[in-house]
């Protein structure tokens, strides 16, 4: 059986379907979900639906192992978040946790089995310098960056360069906005920050509608589609959990206010295509009233929707590769003014060509030496 994005979502949404797979098919599923970081999520939905025990031993071994790792990571995130909150409270600053860390702190449905590589926080722009200085006095440092990268973060992006804990190597991305201000589409940040809610850990997260709106912006305005399969699964579980009319009203209001309505309708289209649950009437009405331009329809059909595919060789067809390239170009296009964009691509392609000739590892300082067991 050849797996598609659609069939993988079917399995994640109705894990009982896994009972019909052969072990060879499971092998492919495990390779693909390992790549797209959804193995442990499948463990939890299969447990929830009571079919995990009946999966083949081969499958159980891999799902169980992935779940142990995810559980430990969730524990680490809770610990790091509390430590980070306490540190910033010393200088009177409130951090709002975003994305993966926020899901874990809130213990929302999608947090079970979810792994993330860093912790994202949001602080007021006026607090940013004080926060950064205080963190750097307390064992958080940033890696030395090339001048180009430093400029990229500070001037064009919406965050300071990643902060790394000296002893624990935890990485925190501290944002002062949810989207690069240079795009001219920056969200009304005050509105986002003022929507915050306190979790039992004492750490703040965004309220449900704002959380989902941020997840939508983060996914659909991003040039990198490598984690889109997982990102859309997040959104599916979040809207299932938050479901109320009030939630949908707020979400639609946010979409109107923040100038990200195309990302919002893209998400609704993606849900219609990949989810097994119907959208509520209010969302369908919104979608019907939205006037798609020809270009928007084209990028949705040729780029965005097919690009929600795991980046695994077992999945990547020529059409999907092209879709991912279109999404990559669009993501840069909408983020940066034209002259900046040209410079950015010039840099990126120089590195890409150099790496193709000499081998990428030759210049990559981050990879470890062979462990030489």
């Amino acid at each position: 059986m050849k797996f598609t994005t659609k069939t993988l979502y079917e399995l994640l949404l109705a894990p009982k379907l896994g009972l019909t797979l052969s072990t060879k098919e499971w092998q492919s599923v495990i390779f693909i979900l390992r790549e797209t970081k959804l193995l442990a999520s499948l463990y939890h939905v299969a447990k929830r639906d009571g079919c995990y025990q009946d999966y083949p031993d081969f499958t159980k071994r891999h799902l169980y192992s992935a779940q142990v790792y995810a559980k430990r990571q969730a524990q680490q995130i809770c610990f790091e978040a509390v430590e980070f909150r306490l540190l910033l409270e010393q200088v009177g600053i409130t951090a709002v946790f975003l994305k993966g860390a926020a899901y874990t702190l809130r213990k929302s449905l999608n947090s079970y089995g979810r792994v993330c590589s860093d912790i994202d926080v949001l602080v007021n722009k006026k607090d940013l310098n004080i926060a950064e200085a205080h963190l750097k006095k307390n064992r958080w440092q940033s890696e030395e960056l090339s001048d180009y990268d430093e400029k990229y973060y500070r001037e064009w992006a919406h965050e300071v360069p990643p902060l790394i804990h000296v002893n624990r190597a935890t990485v925190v991305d501290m944002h002062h906005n949810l989207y690069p201000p240079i795009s001219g589409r920056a969200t009304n940040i005050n509105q986002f920050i003022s929507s915050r809610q306190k979790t039992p850990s004492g750490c703040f997260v965004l309220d449900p509608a704002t959380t989902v709106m941020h997840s939508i912006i983060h996914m659909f305005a991003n040039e990198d589609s490598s984690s889109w399969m997982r990102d859309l699964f997040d959104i599916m579980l979040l809207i299932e959990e938050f479901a109320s009319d009030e939630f949908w009203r707020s979400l639609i209001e946010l979409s109107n206010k923040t100038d990200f309505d195309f990302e919002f309708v893209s998400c609704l289209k993606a849900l219609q295509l990949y989810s097994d649950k119907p959208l509520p009437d209010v969302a369908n009405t919104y979608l019907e009233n939205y006037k798609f331009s020809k270009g928007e329809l084209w990028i949705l059909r040729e780029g965005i929707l097919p690009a929600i595919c795991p980046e695994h060789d077992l999945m990547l067809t020529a059409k999907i590769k092209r879709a991912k390239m279109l999404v990559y170009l669009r993501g840069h296009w909408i983020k940066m003014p034209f002259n900046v964009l040209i410079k950015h691509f010039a840099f990126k392609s120089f590195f890409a060509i150099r790496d193709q000739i000499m081998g990428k590892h030759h210049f990559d300082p981050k990879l470890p030496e062979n462990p030489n067991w």
Partner: protein
Amino acid sequence: MQRYRLPPESRMICLGDNSGVAIYSGYSSNTTFLINKNPQSSSSNFPDISQGITKLDLINCLSLTEDSADNLIQRLISEKVFWTE
């Protein structure tokens, strides 16, 4: 006597050969080892940690003086291995 609590999911064992105590912290997930410098003279009867730990427990398990037990407790509190109630 003051009782110190361990965060949820923590573990604490007094090793059978009286060589010391190993603590797993459910907060930081770190393991802390405390050495018993005089393994001949201590008792390995360790209290039930769900009831909390007292200074006397540490003195018995690790053959500590009153002062060094106080210092150790301060250190464990600052490292958040022990929580004060």
